C-alpha cells in the first residue's frame, strides 16, 4: 500500500506543479502512515532523482521513454499504470495539466480506481476522499465525497506551496520496463508531427508573473508593449481566446477553461473583459492587476489592483518606469 505521485518534467527539469504535488503526496502519505513513491516517464529518469531530495519519496519508479512517445496517451498511461501496480498504490496523485488530463480517465478504468479531477484541497481517510474542486466553469467550488478501493487525484497548481531541494537523500531509482505486449488496442495512435512552442519564452505554468493580452490588444504595436512588459517583469505571456483565435498569440498561451489554469504571484490582465471562461484559468492568482478602458468591465471585480484607462497610454510609461528600476543607469 502506498501513495504514488506522478512527476512531470520538461527537458529533465521537474516542473513546479510537480514539486507542489510531491509535497502534498508526502504529507498525505505521512498522515496515512504509508510509503510515498513517485514515478517519472522521461528519456533519462535517473536525472530526476536528485531534484526530489527532501520530498519524502522512498522510491522513484523510472520509465524510460523518449519525450515524443510520452506525449501519446497510451504509452504514458501504461507507464503510470505499471508503476502504480509495482508500488501497490492506493492513491495516485498527479498535477493537473494537459498531459495528465489526457490519461486520468483511462488510468482510472485500468486501475479500477475512482477518478477525482482538479482538486484544490483534499483529505484521504478510510472512508475515501473528501475534496474541493471547481464546477460550472469554475464559477463555484464543490465539496465532493469519493468512494472506492483506489483513487487517482489530480491537484490544481498553486494550491500547495512548492518545496524543492530541501535537505535529504534523493530517492533510489527503480527502473520499470513496459512489457510491450499490451494488446488491448488493435491499432494505436501514432505521433505524426510535433509542433513545439517558442522555447525562448517562460513556461506559463512555471511563471511567477504572467502578462496576459486580450482583445483590447489590437495591433502589432500593442502586442510589442505586451512582450516588452513581460520582458522587463520576467513574465510569461498569456492570452485570452480572442487573441489566440486571431493568431496574434499561440494556442499554448491561452488561459482559461479551454486553455490553462495558472496561479502566478502576479497576473496582469490587459484589455481582457473577464468572461467566466477566462476567469476559470486565472482567478487563483495571488495578485491580479487589470488594465481596461471600461470601468465596468467584470475583470475589475476580480482584480487586486485596477487601472481604468487605455492600455496604449498606460503601458509605455509603465514599461519605462519598471525598466528604470530593474536596470538603474
Amino acid at each position, binding site marked *: 500500500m502506498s501513495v504514488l505521485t506522478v512527476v512531470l518534467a520538461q527537458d529533465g527539469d521537474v516542473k513546479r506543479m510537480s514539486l507542489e504535488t510531491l509535497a502534498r503526496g508526502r504529507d498525505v502519505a505521512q498522515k496515512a502512515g504509508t510509503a510515498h513513491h513517485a514515478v517519472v516517464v522521461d528519456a533519462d529518469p535517473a536525472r530526476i532523482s536528485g531534484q526530489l531530495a527532501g520530498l519524502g519519496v522512498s522510491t522513484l519508479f523510472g520509465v524510460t521513454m523518449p519525450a515524443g512517445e510520452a506525449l501519446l496517451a497510451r504509452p504514458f498511461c501504461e507507464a503510470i499504470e505499471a508503476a502504480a501496480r509495482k508500488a501497490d498504490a492506493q492513491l495516485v496523485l498527479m498535477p493537473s495539466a494537459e498531459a495528465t488530463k489526457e*490519461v486520468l480517465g483511462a488510468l482510472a478504468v485500468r486501475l479500477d480506481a475512482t477518478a477525482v479531477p482538479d482538486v484544490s484541497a483534499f483529505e484521504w481517510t478510510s472512508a475515501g476522499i473528501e475534496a474541493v474542486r471547481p464546477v460550472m466553469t469554475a464559477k463555484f*467550488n464543490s465539496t465532493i465525497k469519493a468512494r472506492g478501493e483506489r483513487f487517482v487525484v489530480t491537484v490544481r497548481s498553486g494550491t500547495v506551496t512548492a518545496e524543492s531541494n530541501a535537505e535529504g537523500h534523493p530517492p533510489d531509482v527503480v527502473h520499470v520496463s513496459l512489457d510491450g505486449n499490451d494488446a488491448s488496442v488493435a491499432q494505436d495512435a501514432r505521433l505524426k508531427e510535433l509542433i513545439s512552442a517558442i522555447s525562448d519564452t517562460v513556461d506559463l505554468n512555471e511563471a511567477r508573473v504572467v502578462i496576459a493580452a486580450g482583445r483590447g490588444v489590437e495591433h502589432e504595436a500593442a502586442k510589442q508593449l505586451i512582450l516588452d512588459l513581460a520582458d522587463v517583469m520576467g513574465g510569461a505571456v498569456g492570452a485570452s481566446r480572442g487573441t*489566440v483565435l486571431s493568431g496574434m498569440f499561440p494556442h499554448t498561451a491561452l488561459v482559461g477553461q479551454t486553455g490553462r489554469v495558472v496561479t502566478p504571484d502576479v497576473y496582469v490582465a490587459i484589455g481582457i473583459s473577464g468572461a467566466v471562461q477566462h476567469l476559470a484559468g486565472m482567478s487563483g492568482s495571488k495578485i491580479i492587476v487589470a488594465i481596461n478602458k471600461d470601468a465596468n468591465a467584470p475583470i475589475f471585480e476580480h482584480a487586486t489592483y485596477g487601472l481604468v484607462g487605455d492600455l496604449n497610454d498606460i503601458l509605455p510609461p509603465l514599461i519605462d518606469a519598471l525598466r528604470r528600476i530593474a536596470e538603474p543607469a
Partner: protein
Amino acid sequence: MNFTVCIKQVPDVDVPAHILNGEIVQKTPRLILNVYDATALEEALVITEAEGGEVDVVLIGPEKAREAIRKALAMGADRGTHILVEHAEQLDAHAVSRILAAYFRTVPHEAILCGKQAQDTDSGLTGTMLAELLSLPYVSNAVGIYIDGNELVVTRQGDTSQEIVQLPVPGLVACSNNMNDPRIPNLGSIMRSKRKPVTTLTLSDLGLEGDFGPEYTPRVQVTSYQDLPARPPATIWEEETPAMVSNLTQVLVEDARVI
C-alpha cells in the same frame, strides 16, 4: 467516415447564479447543448459534408434533455439516440462512460467524438474512460481534425506543444472548442430536423438497470457547493496616467516584489 458525437445538456453558465444553502441557484435557469459537444458536432458535420458519411448523436439524460438532441439534429446531425435516465444528475463519469460503452457495444461505430469536458461538472473524464472501456485509441484536447485515407489526423493541444496524431478508427477524439464556431441552425433546418429519427433506449434495454438505476450511489458525489474563496478587496484607480503608473509601479516593487 461515420461519426457519433456524445452530447450532454447542461445549465448555461453565463446565466447569473448564486449559492443558497449549499446549492447553486439560477433565477432564470436555461439548459443548453454543452459548448464543447456543439464544437465536436460542428467538426463532424464539416468533415462529413466534405467527405461523405453520416453523423449520429447520443445523449444520456432525462426527458427534458431531448431538446439538446433536437438542437443537434437542427444543426445537421442525421439521427439521435436518447438513453432516457430521469435520475441522470446522479450519474458520475464512471457511470456515464459505462452506459455509453454498453451502447456502443450494440451499434457499429467509426469515429466517436466527445467534448473535452462538461461545463457543469468541469470533469473531463468521460471521453478517455469510454475509449479505455471500448479499448479504442484516442486523443483528447483536439483543436483540429481531418481525414487521411481511413484514419483521422488530430491536432492535440498539449502543455507546451501541439501534437499531430494519426488516429485509426474506430477511435475516439475529445474536442476542445478552439476548433470552430458551431453553426446556429436557421428556421429551415429546424423544420427539416423535426422529421429526423430519434431512438429512445432505457437502461434495461442496455442491461444496466441493476448497475446504474436510481439506486446507484455515485463513486463521486457532491455534498455541497460554495462560492470561490473571497479575494482581497480591489483597489481601482481611475486617474491621470502618470499617477496610475506610479501607483502600480510602487505596488509591483514593494508589495509584489516582482522587480
